[in-house]
């Protein structure tokens, strides 16, 4: 599908500023790094969580543990679609009981991914709190889910796609809006 | 017969040296030092040497019989490993393989070990052949691997055939792992029934129940085909019929893992000799017709048969003295062997003496994987000295076995063993 337009919304500096602010906000809201556990949602949530982890290390001089989740098994469309899980898979080594789990993802859209991630977390224990940090919130929720920490709000309409590119995965940091031909 | 220890230096002087490997027959002397081969050729013996005059005689490799029954354990009244050794020495045999149909049979690594240990005490080399099936019951394979480690050299249920074809297949299949010969006494027992001799004009004349040649040849053919299927080594024992000879000859054209033996009595006698109801001629497989005898001689000539083997089978006088139907099958044969085969093959059928000696020494050793070149310097001396032309009549006093069931008594033989050298000793016959 050819895109009819692509518009850069955040450049590399913008991305990094937002991520830094997210790190500060997480620390502020939770009164420090005590009992925090960062969990990145694969694919791009994971490198984001890693960045937050090292930023928190620099700011508060605390090593916050992190893990990652693959939501494949808890997708709510599993009855209709067969998705082969990623080889990397879910990786949570620490107990999540009584922790404040901060889920990290690149884009918050319908909220279904977050619901699946919370279901996946259920298999590991019972956190004290679950918070959500996203780089971009593009609206259009289909479930009652909200983010606690947002990098940038980017209102979109149907047919538009938010593309997040990260250095670790795509070679550069950038957020763009794209519209594809044939979409309504 | 007198056995003495070899002196430090012994020279066998003035004889003809027959080398069955190089296939030469020429004048020469043999020097044996400390019981080992030192040199062959023309030599002047030292003063201290024991010189044995071999003029008019042939000096060659010790004979090897790969098919004898020494009845120990169980029927020591018929033969023991010691008495069997004496019979062997009298016949020029330095090495034998004993069949496992003893009581109990040699069907376990323990019994093989027993035979090997007992054999060490005997004046000749004795190798046990292990049974194919436990108790020779035709149902369960023996522990071939373990038995080979203890010293078994081949496997056979001889005395009895392996009747179940599936079992024979399994035995051959299993033995391919070890590449040793499997020897099957080929006789269809259902066809044989109570047959005591060859089924032909003579058996009808004598009124004795008998079995036809296909009793043997059918099973020989079966075994040959199974060998082709499995790739095993097969050695066909005591072939008695023209048909079997033909099957073997044919199969050998395309398969080099098949060997076969023929006995002196099948070459020497025919069923016509049984006219006197002599129980010493009652053997299994039976002695057949003149036509079969001719075919066997031809088979020996053209290499269908690799070796001579006596199937030396001692039975007591009491057993053989009964009526023909009740007497057990078998005759002794070690002492009379050379004189008989030399007469039939060399003197009467234009056999080359070198070829005969190959059938008595090199070939049987090759089949069993024994050392074949006995003339190698440094090898312990294992030699037989014989008179190739001596005419003599086989008498009871020529027998050294515990048993005397020999139909050769009274027969004119040509060629006689004069001395046998093995295990550091020399046994001289009159």
């Amino acid at each position, binding site marked *: 599908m050819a895109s009819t337009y692509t518009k850069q919304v955040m450049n590399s500096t913008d991305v990094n500023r937002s991520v830094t602010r997210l790190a500060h906000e997480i620390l502020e809201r939770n009164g420090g790094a005590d009992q925090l556990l960062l969990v990145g949602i694969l694919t791009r949530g994971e490198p984001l969580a890693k960045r937050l982890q090292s930023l928190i290390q620099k700011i508060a001089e605390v090593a916050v543990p992190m893990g990652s989740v693959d939501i494949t098994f808890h997708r709510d469309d599993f009855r209709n679609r*067969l998705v082969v899980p990623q080889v990397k898979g879910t*990786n949570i080594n620490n107990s999540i009981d009584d922790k404040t789990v901060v889920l990290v993802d690149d884009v918050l859209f319908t909220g279904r991914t977050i619901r699946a991630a919370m279901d996946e977390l259920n*298999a590991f224990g019972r956190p004290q709190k679950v918070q959500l940090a996203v780089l971009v919130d593009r609206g259009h929720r289909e479930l009652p889910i909200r983010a606690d920490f947002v990098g940038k709000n980017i209102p979109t309409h149907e047919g538009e796609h938010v593309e997040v590119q990260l250095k670790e995965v795509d070679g550069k940091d950038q957020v763009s809006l794209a519209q594809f031909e044939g979409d309504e | 017969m007198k056995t003495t220890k070899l002196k430090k230096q012994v020279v066998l002087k003035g004889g003809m040296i027959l080398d069955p490997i190089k296939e030469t027959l020429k004048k020469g002397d043999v020097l044996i030092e400390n019981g080992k081969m030192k040199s062959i050729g023309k030599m002047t013996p030292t003063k201290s040497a024991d010189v044995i005059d071999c003029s008019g005689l042939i000096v060659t490799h010790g004979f090897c019989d790969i098919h004898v029954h020494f009845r120990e354990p169980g029927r020591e009244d018929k033969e023991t490993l010691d008495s069997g050794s004496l019979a062997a020495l009298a016949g020029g045999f330095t090495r034998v393989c004993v069949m496992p149909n003893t009581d109990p049979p040699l069907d376990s690594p323990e019994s093989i070990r027993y035979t090997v240990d007992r054999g060490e005490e005997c004046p000749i080399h004795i190798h046990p052949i292990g049974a194919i099936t436990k108790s020779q019951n035709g*149902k369960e*394979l023996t522990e071939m691997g373990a038995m080979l480690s203890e010293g078994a050299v081949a496997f056979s249920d001889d005395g009895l055939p392996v009747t179940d074809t599936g079992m024979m297949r399994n035995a051959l299949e299993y033995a391919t792992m070890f590449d040793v010969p499997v020897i099957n006494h080929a006789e269809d027992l259902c066809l044989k029934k109570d047959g005591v001799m060859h089924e032909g004009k003579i058996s009808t004349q004598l009124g004795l129940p008998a079995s036809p040649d296909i009793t043997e040849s059918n099973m020989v053919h079966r075994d040959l085909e199974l060998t082709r299927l499995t790739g095993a080594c097969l050695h066909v024992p005591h072939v008695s019929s023209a048909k079997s000879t033909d099957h073997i000859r044919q199969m050998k054209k395309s398969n080099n893992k098949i060997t076969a033996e023929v006995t002196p009595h099948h070459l020497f006698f025919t069923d016509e000799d049984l006219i006197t109801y002599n129980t010493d001629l009652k053997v299994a497989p039976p002695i057949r017709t003149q036509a079969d005898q001719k075919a066997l001689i031809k088979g020996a000539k053209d290499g269908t048969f690799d070796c001579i083997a006596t199937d030396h089978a001692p039975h007591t006088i009491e057993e053989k003295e009964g009526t023909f139907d009740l007497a057990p099958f078998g005759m002794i044969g070690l002492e009379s062997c050379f004189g008989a085969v030399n007469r039939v093959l060399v003197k009467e059928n234009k056999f080359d003496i070198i070829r005969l000696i190959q059938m008595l020494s090199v070939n049987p050793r090759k089949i069993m994987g024994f050392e074949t070149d006995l003339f190698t310097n440094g090898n312990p001396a294992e030699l037989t000295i014989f008179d190739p032309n001596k005419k003599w009549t086989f008498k009871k006093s020529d027998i050294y076995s515990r048993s005397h069931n020999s139909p050769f008594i009274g027969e004119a033989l040509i060629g006689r063993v004069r001395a046998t050298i093995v295990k550091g000793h020399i046994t001289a016959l009159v």
Partner: protein
Amino acid sequence: MLQQKHLLGLEGYPAEDIQTIIDTAFTFREVLDRPIKKVPSLQGKTIVNLFFENSTRTRISFELAQKRLSADTVNFSASTSSLKKGETFKDTAQNIEAMKIDAVVMRHPTPGAPLHLTQHINSIVINAGDGTHEHPTQAILDMTSLHEKFGHLKGLKVGIIGDISHSRVALSNIHGLKTMGAEVTLCGPSTLIPPFAEDLGVSVNYNVDEVIEWADALNVLRIQRERMGGGLLPSVREYRNLFGISTERLSNHKKEIVIMHPGPINRGVEIDSSVADSDQAIILDQVLNGVASRMAILYLLLGGKQEEGDS
């Protein structure tokens, strides 16, 4: 995701699909390490375990896999003596179909029975062992374990030791390993190696020490005691001397070799206790991978939408 609807055997099974199953199995290994070992992927799906032959281990492994995927499981054990061959098999199959089952996991003593089943019902059929023919899920878990240990299957040298001619585990392993580019040597008593084995693309060697020298891993098969003392094998003692993976034998070879066994083990016969319990043996990993790989197989065969037009 997988090209074939059923899993009847590994003969002709595509290499990409075997790799997909192995990769997915690793993901499910992680699920088995969680406190709550459950994912909802097969919720609402019904699977029948149809076992015409006794097997506790394989059945439990399948049941666990099914339950961890939130499927509903039903067990059917039948003794062959109570079944007249042919007629009742068809009846059983059609009864299942009438109950609207999604998949059948079947173990049957007759080679070809699972294929036969697919001709009578529409459900997905997974072969849990058909007589002396194939046992594809075992081979898959074996390959998953080898992949876990070595990181790859291509070029790996695997020796299969034991009663090959009566082993469905051996045959499936031969097909699977060859497809994935490994080399296989069979070793066992010549009476227990099928004729024409080399035609399958494997080597045959009766000398187990030579095979140990050559191989990266050994798959040691169970010797059934029923085979002893008959026309095929003389005794346990002889088998152990010639082919047993004993402590003495391994200590004669100064090399690291991975030891596998499908279980149950005859300690002291085909393998010594100390070998089975050593670090070289990955037997317990095989068991765990058994559940994980069966989860992967069920997930990939049953997950997602049912095809249109099914009853």
